[in-house]
């Protein structure tokens, strides 16, 4: 049927309000902070931290959205990824200490690869052994995944000890680049680049592939995806493994960001990741990205302007977002 001359297609919904939150927050913070260079430093640090939180939270939001699984064990993969990397550090120390960006990047990629491999394999086992028996039982999910988290944390303490382990940055990533009065730490630029690559890859997969189509549809209505002939649980295993591997990647990035590892690091980052998932809307990668930036930038600004408020700033932010949009910025699921 040909479209009539007077026929007008309804406009595609483009909800841009959440996209404006981070720029508006940054602009609002500028006069409060006063110094432009300090504002740039805080903002870039927040963006870098936000990218790392996004990497860890992106898998969590898909797992949450796709199968209603509350995986409190997600933090374990963050820690395990970081500790898997530190095991490999002696093998790539030559590359890390070389005065070459290419060699340093090679070392970082190798550490990331091993972390993602280890956490991906463990994620598969975790889903099969711990999560699968408690599908559809939220209370049991919380209990067994928190249990898994505690066991992982204690195993890390047993193997690596309870004390902090230093994870030095590769040579070329240390120090800052100075632009006028503004100093930008090099590693933060690396973190931003890795975060953007992951975000772009996820958008590409979700929006341009059949697998992505299935994931998006599954997040919205898993039962209907099954009625169309697709085994959503097999899909979920894949997403769970990918989410675990991304948590491992996030663990490596976070370890370098802090230049230290602790057995509790996964739990600490996971709290932020959960806040981000709730703020972004269950199952939404885009919402997760904006939520991560908001959480990190807000924490940085609050830490500078009102240090006593810094600890509660994320909870306050989450409350404000949920008052505005009770199901998060970009809810995908109907739950």
């Amino acid at each position, binding site marked *: 049927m040909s479209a009539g001359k007077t026929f007008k297609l309804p406009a595609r*919904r483009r909800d841009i309000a959440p996209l404006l939150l981070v720029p508006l927050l940054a602009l609002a913070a500028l006069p409060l902070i006063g110094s432009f260079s300090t504002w740039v430093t805080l903002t870039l640090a927040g963006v870098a931290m936000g990218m790392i939180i996004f990497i860890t939270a992106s898998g969590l939001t898909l797992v949450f959205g796709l199968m209603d699984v509350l995986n409190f064990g997600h933090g374990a993969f963050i820690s395990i990824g970081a500790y898997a990397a530190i095991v490999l550090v002696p093998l790539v120390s030559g590359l890390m200490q070389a005065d070459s960006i290419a060699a340093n990047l090679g070392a970082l990629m190798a550490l990331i690869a091993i972390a993602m491999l280890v956490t991906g394999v463990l994620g598969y086992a975790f889903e099969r052994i711990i999560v699968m028996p408690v599908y559809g039982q939220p209370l049991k999910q919380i209990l067994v995944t928190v249990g898994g988290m505690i066991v992982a944390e204690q195993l890390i303490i047993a193997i690596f000890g309870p004390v902090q382990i230093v994870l030095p940055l590769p040579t070329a990533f240390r120090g800052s680049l100075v632009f006028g009065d503004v100093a930008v730490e090099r590693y933060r630029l690396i973190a931003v680049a890795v975060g953007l690559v992951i975000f772009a890859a996820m958008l590409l997969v979700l929006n341009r592939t059949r697998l992505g189509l*299935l994931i998006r549809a599954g997040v919205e*209505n898993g039962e*209907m995806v099954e*009625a*169309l*002939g*697709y085994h959503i649980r097999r899909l979920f295993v894949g997403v769970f493994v990918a989410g675990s591997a991304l948590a491992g990647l996030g663990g490596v990035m976070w370890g370098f960001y802090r230049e230290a590892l602790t057995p509790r690091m996964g739990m600490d980052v996971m709290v932020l990741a959960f806040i981000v998932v709730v703020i972004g809307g269950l199952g939404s990668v885009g919402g997760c990205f904006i939520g991560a930036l908001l959480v990190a930038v807000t924490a940085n600004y609050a830490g500078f302007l009102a240090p006593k408020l810094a600890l509660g700033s994320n909870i306050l932010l989450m409350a404000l977002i949920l008052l505005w949009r009770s199901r998060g910025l970009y809810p995908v699921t109907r739950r």
Partner: protein
Amino acid sequence: MSDGAPLLSLTGVNTHIGPYHILQGVDLEVRRGGLTMLLGRNGAGKTTTLRTIMGMWHASAGNVRFDDADITAWATPDIARAGIAYVPENMGIFADLTVRENLLLAARSGPIDDARLRWIFGLFPALEKFWPLTAGVLSGGQKQMLSIARAIIEPRKLFLIDEPTKGLAPAIIGNIIAAFSELKKSTDTTILVVEQNFLFAKSLGDAVAVMDNGRIVHTGAMAELAADRDLQHRLLGLHLDQHQ
């Protein structure tokens, strides 16, 4: 009712949902070809019957056979892949996916066949207009068209369609009736439709089964039921002239 062996048969099917005993021994045969209407009052168990066939709720007793295979305990995706397309009561549209993506997902065997798509656009012209838009912006009638189009985007042996006219304006119902008539003429697919709109059922049905309290209480030709007002009143509690 069409001749030949049944494509789908339910024998003594019982289904429990939590503490509730919904289907209490359903015996139903759907023969190959033609359109069978499954009628009954609210709460009779019609939707549960379709969901049990699709494996969304598993039968606690009895068996479901489709195309000579016992599918009682099969998983929903395997039942769908055996050749059953399902349109749920709530249409099951993916609102955040475009019309194109909704259909693309339903075309399991690969890219959408162009001739098939043209045929569907002939049945539901609105879908061509809204092709690039997210399904969430469609009206209720257009969503129903999309849900049916999604079921027929590839040839299937059996369609299960749950209340296709529910909540739709009469003009849209006319459109759906025309599409089903065309579907019946254009394909050799078997169709089982759950419906409450008796005029819709009468205009399309070849065979009919009536449910009450979780059991099939009547089967026969649709024309016979349409001609017998007393039977309609007894089985469905309605008189045709009082119904839509």
